């Protein structure tokens, strides 16, 4: 991963009257990575994105985008797709794309050529001259995405990129985003779909009530929340194992049992012990690492991870 910084946010805060929307937030986004911004509704994600794009001014702190303060020239190197988005309904798809492309500094001819390229890639070429209102919601979403990347930006900021898309179109957009990352672009993605973050994101920032809760690589964040336990599925009296302190049974039995290890005992020691015994057989053995969804719930709702693991 390149360490060239695309966004550098340093200690920013923003209040609306007495309500503190963002509080002393600091993070970096690097070029060539997908960076996920997570948090519950009203956590301050949109406010943070709007401050990055200079739509809102922070009360304090500093923001650098693509190497400096945001200027008109910098804006032309950014693609932005907000959660609340739309297109003029009464105009043709190609006209809409060319107009928005020219606002990003493209010549009309260049904007038209690129628009047609993207429409072809997205299987929408035949709709180029149709009015936006004649397109389905999913098609409009794809056009909006194409507009976001039309001017070949260095940084893309997308709020809920897969909202309103069916699984096939989700895959298409996901591939385009990952392709963009491979070419060295930076993607900031705000989403509630945790499995998409696990699949796509390199690093993440979780905000709750305007404050940073989690920040780092996805693997590191998950490891940070890993328990001293393993999940096993099979037959045997797990309590008899030397390294196991206690066993929690899953409520429905489908997900196996959670074996909490004694202090200092490593999972591979337990696995070796099971393998040596003839009265125990396993079909599944895994570390009790929580999913991002579990972590999200735990952080946001204050639930204990142990309860969520045992309860599922």
């Amino acid at each position, binding site marked *: 991963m390149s360490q060239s910084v695309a966004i550098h946010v340093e200690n920013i805060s923003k*209040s*609306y*009257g007495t309500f503190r929307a963002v509080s002393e937030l600091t993070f970096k986004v690097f070029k060539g990575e997908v960076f996920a911004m997570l948090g519950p509704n009203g956590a301050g994600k949109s406010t943070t994105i*709007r401050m990055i*794009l200079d*739509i*809102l*001014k922070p009360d304090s702190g500093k923001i650098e985008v693509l190497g400096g303060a945001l200027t*008109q020239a910098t*804006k*032309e190197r*950014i693609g*932005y*797709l*907000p959660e*609340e*988005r*739309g*297109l*003029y*309904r*009464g*105009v043709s798809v190609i006209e809409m794309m060319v*107009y*928005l492309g*020219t*606002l*990003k500094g493209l010549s009309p001819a260049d904007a038209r050529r690129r628009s047609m390229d993207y429409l072809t890639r997205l299987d929408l070429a035949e709709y180029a001259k149709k009015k936006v209102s004649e397109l389905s919601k999913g098609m409009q979403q794809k056009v*909006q995405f194409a*507009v976001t990347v039309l001017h070949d930006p260095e940084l893309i900021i997308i709020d809920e990129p897969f909202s309103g898309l069916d699984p096939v179109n989700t895959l298409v957009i996901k591939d385009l985003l990952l392709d963009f990352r491979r070419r060295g672009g930076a993607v900031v993605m705000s989403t509630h779909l945790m499995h998409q973050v696990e699949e796509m994101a390199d690093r993440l920032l979780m905000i709750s009530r305007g404050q940073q809760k989690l920040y780092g690589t996805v693997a590191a964040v998950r490891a940070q929340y890993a328990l001293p336990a393993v999940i096993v599925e099979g037959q045997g009296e797990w309590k008899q194992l030397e390294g196991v302190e206690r066993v929690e049974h899953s409520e429905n039995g489908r997900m196996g049992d959670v074996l909490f290890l004694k202090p200092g005992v490593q999972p591979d020691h337990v696995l070796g012990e099971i393998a040596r015994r003839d009265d125990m057989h396993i079909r599944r053995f895994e570390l009790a690492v929580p999913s991002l969804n579990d972590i999200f719930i735990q952080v946001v709702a204050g639930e204990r991870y142990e309860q969520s693991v045992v309860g599922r």
Partner: protein
Amino acid sequence: MSRLTLQIFLYELWRGLRRRGYLFSAFGIPLLVLLGLLIAPRLAGVAAQDAAESISRAQERAAQFGDALGYVDLSGLLEGIAPSNPRLTPYPDEQSARAALNAGEIAGYYRIEPDYLETGAVTTVMPMLRLDSIDSAPIRRLMLDALTQGLDSDLAAHLTRTPSYTTINISLLGAKEGGGLDEGSTFIVVYVFALALLIGVFFTNGYLLQTVIEEKETRLIEILISSVRPSDLLTGKILAMGLLGLLQMAFWVAGIILAIQIAGGGAGQLEFLASIANIRLPTELVPLLAIYFVLAYLLFAALYGIIGALSNSMREGPQYAVIFTIPAVFPLYFINLFATTPDGTIPTVLSLFPLTAPLAMVQRLAISVVPLEQIMLSIALLAASCVGALWLAGRLFRMQTLLAGQMIKLRELPYLLRG
């Protein structure tokens, strides 16, 4: 104008010109009026033919007997008076007059009522009502002859002579020397200016409201303001909608002139239009009128931008607009005051206050010589208001984006405006 503002201006202009609603109101309505003018005479002709047939008999009778008329004097005032008009025949009583009418000897008769001296009552009797046959001149002349009987003939001639009028079209004579316009031209200048401004503002701002509300409805605005400053976006829109409004006015004026010409017989209207066009304003007034028109246009467009930003539907917008449009026409209520004391306190204050300045200052300029410093101050205040209103409209435009269509609470205004 920045590159982005120009791009938005051109795009909005192009988009607006293709809107069905605009095409209909700009071209369709004048076209319908023209068609109406072409078709109406034919339809009227058919109806007139039926009516013409029904009265043709009466007309034939009138042609046969000429315009012979009779009269019956029940007042006794015309005793011994011989009518000087050979068309007029006296009858001693109504029966004989009616008999002559039935016999077709006369086309009608006048009955001078007994109380004529007190009431002036005269009744006209004719076989069929024809507006073109109602003529009080013969009996009036007869009564004048009776009343002046016995007077010196020269004196009688003086008393009965119709005054000789000479009409001068003052609008063609230009401005009076040494200052303002004559009263007639002043009213025309003020009313034409007010009418042009208000119609322009009305048209333009309908489109502006529509396009601002559309931004909110489509939710494209947040994408746009990530590329363009809200004030640039709004300026581009305002200029485009302003030009669309002016173009529409131009089409309508052209349509009216064409309609008058097609309708024919519109010499009077054409003369009126020509007289407006021929008003010779003092040279220094023309650029001032232009400045006030443009600034007023921009100010009201920006104010409508604010209304658009605050409204969530086309239904709400015009209701809020009254707040600005009533003060704008306020100076017209004081037109007499402006005519008598153009440099008084109220005209001066109204000509400085930005919302009322365009119409107030134009009235003063047309009537008197306004001190240069007052003109400068008025224009400066108007220009500053335009900039302020544009800025505020841009801010509110952005706020509405952030609030996603929620109504703004007054207590939230300061920090929302700060951004």
